[in-house]
């Protein structure tokens, strides 16, 4: 069994699935719905900034660098047509909602970033 939700990307960029949060990460013209969770200690990657090369996210909590490719590999199945995104979730019975939040990870790379901790 699966559950389908529909997002209007002009209004929403974040999905809450129970206690887990996912956000829409832009990669060029593509959009992917990734978990808002740094693999180090669970920091909010939506508030991460990109490293100058644009290939990693610098977690705001401990500065851990997480490869964008690795983040994308964990994304939820989603089909986007224009501003509409259809997301397919496993049927877990937990409540699901869509909201709008500030997402720094979609801003251009941060030129002031320092080389802090690396992803494990």
């Amino acid at each position: 069994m699966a559950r389908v939700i529909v997002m209007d990307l002009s209004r929403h960029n974040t999905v809450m699935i129970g206690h887990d949060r996912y956000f829409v990460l832009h990669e060029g013209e593509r959009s992917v719905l990734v978990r808002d969770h740094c693999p180090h200690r669970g920091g909010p990657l939506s508030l991460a900034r990109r490293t100058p090369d644009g290939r990693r996210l610098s977690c705001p909590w401990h500065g851990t660098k997480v490869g964008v490719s690795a983040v994308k590999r964990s994304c939820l199945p989603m089909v986007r047509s224009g501003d509409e995104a259809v997301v397919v979730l496993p049927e877990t019975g937990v409540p699901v909602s869509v909201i709008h939040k500030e997402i720094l990870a979609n801003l251009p790379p941060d030129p002031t970033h320092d080389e802090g901790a690396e992803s494990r």
Partner: protein
Amino acid sequence: MTVQPQAAPAATRAGGTLGKRVLAFAGHPLFRGDAQVVHGRNPYRRMLVPGSLAESDFDSPPGPGEWAAHRSLAAHRLLGTFYEAETVLLPEQGLDGLYEDFDLFYGRDLKELREGSVSELERFAFGCLDEAVDVSGAATPEVLEAYFQHVVEEAAAGPSPALTAIANARDRKSAADLYLVQLALDGLTEASAMSRNLAGAYGPEQSALFKIFIDEFGYGVYDAKHTTIFAKMLRSRAMATHVHAYWNFYLAGPLATNNYYYYLSRDHAKFFRYAGAVTYAEAVFAPAFVEMIKVFRGIFGDTVDLHYCDEHAHIDEHHGRITRDQVLLALAGRHGPRVVPELLRGIAEARLVGGWFEDDTAAQIRWADDLPRHRELAGSARTGSEPPLRVALTADGPFGTRSHDGDVVLEVERGEADLVTTPTGPPERLTRGEAVLIPGGRLYGVRPATPEAACLLHAVSPA
């Protein structure tokens, strides 16, 4: 309609190599049109409106929000002609008198122009889909099934914008005929694109697709062939039944929808996308034809032959099941997660271009049905400072239809002219000094009602 050359320097606006090739193709005598609004019984001649093509910039592909742009219509007319030249078209009355056109249409000169342009023109016309659709995440057969079920249920629940526009039109008969013409684009050459995916060896899924193909071709019985029964429907409306009689009235959305299946079928790297698209199409056809039967019966009663719609309302339920279970899900199961994103993409793209078909047809119906209001709007429209384009009309000049990227005001400068917006409805007579607002993306043609006439096209400044 002929746009005077001083107003549109062709070679400079049409862009680089692609622009030059398509101008060379469209400038061929086969595609210059004639004075008739409805094309004659000659499948090789169709109006590509070379004068308006020259204004189109083939260096700038239309983006997802520019589907109604004139260059989109122009590109899809060309692509449709390219694709059909890879099929066999013979006139029902025989080739006598048309041998030369047959030779020209399939001949080396046009073939080389087609082959040298088709891939680039496809990128131009369909590149917007790459921007409009993303598929991401772990795409499993379960995800595929859930997504497919969602979009099919959505299609079954939602009203058809085009059929709603027909039901709400003042002139419902003309509106219904306009819709029939959009269906005729595929209806009279049905399953031609599909035939390209039947060759090869790909297991039971190939046989499943072939079953559908056989149905489309009436099991080899000409009277049962879907194109034959489509023609019966046209005949019951006293409409022409030869291929592309109403070429001038095909809209960009329906052209793109028809071309989309050729586009996928021509390139077998897109096979899985095709499988997704055809499964979506077959699944949504049956309820769409049920709705169409209701609307058409409401307008025409028993005078219209809806055998074609009845046939599809019935057979497409089976085709929907066969494509879902024996093609879509079977391919996903056999070939694994790697192909699922392509299957999903095909479904999403077919849904998108199908929506364009509906929205474009609905918009044309609403506009053509409300020309008095557009006469009023012309009076209050703010026209730009650019000098207008002058269009000279002569009785023996070629008739063609076109659209514009943005709103324009068409004003009759000299003589009288008929504005033509539908295939069977009465034209709108405009006398000297009268004007009408033509919304961006709306198709129209103008023919002279006096021995000579001239119109001015004023660009409208966005509000």
